[in-house]
């Protein structure tokens, strides 16, 4: 079955300011979001992710480009004419209304009959497990509960797409973890397409079907959490998501998505590279810290160096190694119960790579 696109962003640019102060919050961005997908826009603050969300919601209009909702260009429509609802970072619950009235608001504005509204509100309260608090003022409930009401309010009119603007950032760690699972459940139960904005890479990896990593008004890479984590296309993506080691290497051969590269140690290893690129000459490799091991230096070592620091973290240990060519390299190794992994500061070690751990970056 071909995937249907819920949202198609086509060549959208958004410029702010005038003259010399003008800058592009979004620079010719195109992306397709599939129906029933949990899609995340991930990036540091100021990367344009919230701007893109606001354009889809209709709080702002693109300078250029189209935004299609199931094929129809919604870019020129005001927010109240778009079948798209938003969960705001600050929740934006109406303080002069009860929980029930908040949830009913969208349905009332759509002119639904009273009986239908009541049934739907009850259903929504049940969905977010807030039945008991229907008649409370929104100021009388906790942050986590407000979050649920905000969700219920946005879901009640059954939008075609639900937009979530960093909705979990105000919650404490434990509640945030709970809500991540809750959001996933709600998305699954309602079957509504979710577009989720966050700067938290861990949140993005846990919840998303697909992630778009953004920086400086551009989308750098779109892919599944595995793609983004294991096959970063550019340095920014590799660096932004998780801890990473960068290594210099020379391409020996490359075809069919597989390459062989020579490390500065002279050792040759296999590497993958992003589709559409043809690596040659000097390149940068990415190796995740958990995909390497430290061992006594021997013929199979990809690199040799000395340990500068050992950080014990309970579940695992981080070895900060300085390679002989001067590059820093971090190895994360899982701990067994009998103490750490037996290497100490200043000791000489070899770095061993598992199969298929290196990815060549485009830049």
């Amino acid at each position, binding site marked *: 079955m071909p995937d249907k696109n819920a949202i198609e962003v086509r060549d959208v640019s958004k410029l702010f300011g005038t003259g010399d102060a003008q800058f592009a919050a979004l620079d010719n961005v195109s992306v397709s979001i599939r129906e029933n997908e949990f899609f995340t826009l991930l990036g540091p603050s100021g990367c344009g992710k919230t701007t893109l969300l606001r354009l889809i*919601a*209709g*709080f702002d209009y693109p300078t250029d480009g189209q935004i299609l909702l199931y094929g129809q260009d919604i870019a020129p429509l*005001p*927010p*109240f*004419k778009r079948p*798209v*609802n*938003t969960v*705001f970072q*600050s929740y*934006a*619950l*109406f*303080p*002069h209304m009860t929980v029930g009235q908040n949830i009913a*608001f*969208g349905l009332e*504005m*759509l002119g639904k009959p009273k009986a239908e509204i009541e049934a739907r509100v009850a259903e929504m309260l049940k969905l977010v497990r807030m039945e008991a608090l229907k008649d409370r003022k929104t100021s009388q409930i906790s942050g986590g509960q407000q979050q649920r009401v905000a969700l219920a*309010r*946005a879901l009640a*009119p059954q939008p075609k797409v639900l937009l979530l603007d960093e909705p979990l950032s105000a919650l404490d760690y434990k509640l945030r973890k709970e809500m991540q699972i809750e959001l996933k459940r709600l998305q699954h139960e309602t079957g509504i397409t979710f577009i989720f904005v966050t700067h938290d890479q861990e949140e993005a990896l846990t919840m998303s079907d697909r992630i778009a990593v953004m920086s400086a008004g551009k989308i750098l890479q779109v892919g599944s959490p595995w793609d983004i984590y294991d096959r970063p296309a550019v340095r920014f993506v590799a660096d932004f998501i998780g801890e990473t080691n960068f290594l210099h290497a020379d391409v020996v051969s490359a075809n069919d998505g597989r390459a062989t590269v020579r490390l500065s140690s002279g050792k040759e290893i296999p590497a993958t590279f992003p589709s559409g690129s043809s690596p040659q000459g000097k390149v940068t490799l990415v190796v995740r810290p958990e995909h390497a091991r430290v061992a006594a230096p021997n013929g199979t070592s990809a690199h040799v160096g000395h340990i500068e620091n050992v950080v014990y973290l309970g579940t695992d240990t981080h070895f900060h190694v300085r390679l002989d060519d001067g590059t820093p390299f971090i190895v994360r190794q899982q701990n067994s119960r009998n103490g750490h992994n037996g290497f100490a500061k200043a000791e000489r070690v070899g770095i061993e790579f598992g199969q298929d751990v290196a990815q060549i970056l485009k830049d």
Partner: protein
Amino acid sequence: MAKRRFDLKALPGFTTIAVICFVALYLPIIILVAYAFNAATSTSEWGGFSLKWFASAWNNDQVIDATIRSFQIAVLAATFATIAATMAALATTRTKAYRGLTFKYAFINQPLMVPEIVTAVALLIFFSRIKVWTGYAGLGYLIGAHTAFCIPFAYLPIRARLESMDLTLERAAADLYATPFKAFRRVTLPLLWPGILAGFMLAFVISLDDVVITNFVKLGGQDTLPTYMLGQIRRGITPEINAISTAFLLLSILIVTLFFFASRKRD
């Protein structure tokens, strides 16, 4: 609670200055109120307790007439001023920043800075011309003048309220299919209400209290309570003036208190 590094109360002379200020503010009023209950005809010699000056004021048709007129003008002027101020506040806070917006703020608040006597003379000349042209001689001139100088007073609390309001709420309403008008009626207006009440209350009190402009603009037989009292004082003071002042004071306090609680309840 952490100890504050700087405590104003620790400054030398703080208490003394505070006491002097309060005495200067309230002692004359206390004396005025006390002599309202004087049985004698003097406002400086105590002749025993009596309510006769209240009764005399109550039976003075001119006093009642001026009081009713004062309230008529204040209610209408404050209402018009509040409506105008609300619209002005919305226009200056709910539109995108544009060139000349700061100038507009200044323009709306200018009446606060123009000397009242200048406005009074200007209105006198302006209205007398209109009167010649139209022949109209009703309360309209006073209501119009009061509305004009009440607008900035009503505008300030309404604008303050609008500025402190979370814009995302209006955005959320729009997101939930509310047209701009419905969003205003269902979200902005209910949340703005305390500011509107505060603005109305301020405008009302300012109108009730005005002497200078009223004195210039009023036509024959259009005395408000303050201008009537001013006229009486020229003819020598009796405790009746104290009694009227006291009643006026109590009424003002009562109205302000009522509005205060009304706006608190909506908050």
